[in-house]
């Protein structure tokens, strides 16, 4: 440090730098991507702190500003979105030129802004948040909570001066369908840097009260405003709320992360109010309908029973009469059958008698016929036969005697010349002993001779 050195004043150095930068960069413009770490507005001018990070480490920083005229022009082109783009945390694509001021140092002067870059970045961030919530199992956590069919105590989180906040209350308390609600407001900014913190706090606060539901409302706004509701911290607070959260944060197309995480999300605060009073009304109507239904069915059952009863009673009479008539008929049938059977029996008996008598007559006549044919005729035949036999026999007998007579008749022998001689009427041949000297009579055909036996000697 003791050596004589060429020295400059700071002003000289800064002037030199100023010159250098002006000479080299004054007319050059660059499109730069950076993240806004801080944004501030003063008298219509915007002052931003930009940074660039790599793997969580900051590797570049620079301040930037946008003068009122440029801002107004660009903001008009972007439909007022520019203020929303200039929010810390946003990644932005800026057209800048480099400025060096001897007092304020190096700065970027913003000439133009390309919002698409930021939007894309926001979308990416939203996706990352959703993914994280999913990983942490927070995304559907609210759905585990019980949402009563009738919600009467409501914690309302929102900005009290916004139309959304007022609309919600008006709808809820002044509709003609159901308005028996109690609302406790938990004011919180719904846009801007403080919004997330305030809403997170409001949710925590509301959880300490005996409310049925937490309603977060916002009266509509820009795309960049909505980005607040994509915040991870807020989503986490909603997811972890022990009380069901209903969102009505007024948007047209894009659903915010808060909507996704909430138990129920409606498009507008009015819609949330309607949801709540309709829910109560539906419940009431269900109750009444059920009761009416019960009454109707019960009346139906009773009248059905009465009908059933009427019929049973009628059948009772009918069937009883039927039975009695049946029995009367049965008795009549029995008597008739008895009559028929009796007559049959009598008729059968009559035929039997006739048959018997016929049989008797037939047998008797048969017997007579038999007697006539067999007895009498046969006997007569026999008599004839035996008589004839007797006659024949006698004829033979007489004939035989006649023959014998003819044979024995001596007259024929006498005629032929033989004679018959007898002694004492005995034939000679029959004589025995001495009959000499006796008188013998001899008969011939012509003569009867008497003689005395002189001599007798055997003829052979």
């Amino acid at each position, binding site marked *: 440090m003791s050596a004589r050195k060429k020295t400059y004043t700071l002003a000289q150095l800064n002037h030199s730098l100023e010159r250098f930068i002006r000479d080299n960069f004054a007319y050059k413009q660059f499109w730069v991507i950076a993240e806004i770490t801080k944004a501030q507005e003063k008298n219509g001018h915007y002052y931003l702190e930009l940074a660039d990070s790599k793997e969580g480490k900051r590797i570049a920083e620079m301040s930037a500003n946008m003068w009122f005229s440029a801002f107004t022009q660009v903001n008009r082109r972007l439909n007022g979105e520019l203020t929303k783009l200039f929010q810390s945390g946003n990644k932005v694509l800026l057209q800048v030129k480099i400025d060096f001021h001897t007092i304020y140092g190096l700065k970027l002067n913003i000439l133009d802004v390309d919002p698409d870059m930021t939007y894309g970045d926001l979308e990416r961030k939203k996706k990352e948040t959703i993914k994280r919530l999913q990983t942490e199992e927070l995304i559907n956590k609210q759905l585990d909570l019980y949402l009563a069919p009738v919600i009467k105590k409501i914690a309302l989180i929102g900005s009290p001066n916004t139309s959304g906040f007022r609309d919600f209350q008006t709808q809820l308390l002044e509709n003609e369908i159901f308005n028996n609600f109690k609302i406790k407001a938990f004011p919180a900014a719904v846009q801007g840097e403080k919004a997330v913190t305030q809403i997170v706090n409001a949710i925590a606060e509301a959880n300490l009260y005996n409310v049925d539901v937490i309603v977060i409302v916002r009266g509509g706004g820009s795309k960049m405003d909505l980005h607040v509701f994509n915040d991870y911290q807020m989503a986490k607070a909603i997811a972890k709320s022990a009380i069901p959260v209903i969102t009505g944060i007024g948007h047209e197309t894009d659903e915010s992360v808060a909507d996704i995480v909430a138990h129920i999300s409606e498009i507008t605060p009015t819609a949330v109010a309607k949801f709540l009073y309709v829910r109560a009304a539906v419940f009431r109507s269900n109750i009444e309908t059920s009761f009416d239904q019960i009454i109707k069915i019960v009346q139906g059952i009773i009248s059905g029973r009465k009908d059933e009863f009427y019929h049973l009673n009628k059948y009772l009479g009918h069937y009883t009469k039927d039975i009695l008539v049946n029995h009367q008929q049965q008795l009549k049938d029995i008597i008739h059958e008895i009559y028929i059977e009796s007559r049959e029996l009598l008729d059968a008996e009559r035929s039997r008698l006739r048959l018997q008598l016929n049989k008797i007559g037939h047998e008797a006549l048969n017997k007579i016929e038999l007697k006539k044919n067999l007895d009498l005729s046969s006997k*007569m035949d026999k008599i*004839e036969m035996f*008589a*004839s036999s007797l*006659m024949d026999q*006698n*004829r033979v*007998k*007489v004939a035989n*005697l*006649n023959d*014998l*007579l003819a044979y*024995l*008749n*001596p*007259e024929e022998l006498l005629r032929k010349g033989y004679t*018959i001689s*007898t002694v004492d*009427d005995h*034939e000679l041949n*029959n004589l025995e002993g001495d009959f000499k000297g006796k008188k013998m*009579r001899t*008969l011939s055909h012509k003569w*009867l001779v008497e003689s005395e036996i002189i001599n007798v000697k055997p003829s052979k």
Partner: protein
Amino acid sequence: MELDKNLKYDEALEKLQEIVTLLERKEITIDELSGKVKEAKLLVEFCREKLDETEDEIKKIIKTDQED
């Protein structure tokens, strides 16, 4: 010689038999001989007539029966 009109067939037949027996036995005397023979002949005729009569009668009886 005449036969007794009341003579019965059986008696006649008996008599005839007797005469025939007498003739067989030659127990007839020469004096009786021609009378007996004549009587026998008469008896034969008698019997025959009787038989004929009886037969006729029977035939008549039977006939009337069969005509019934």
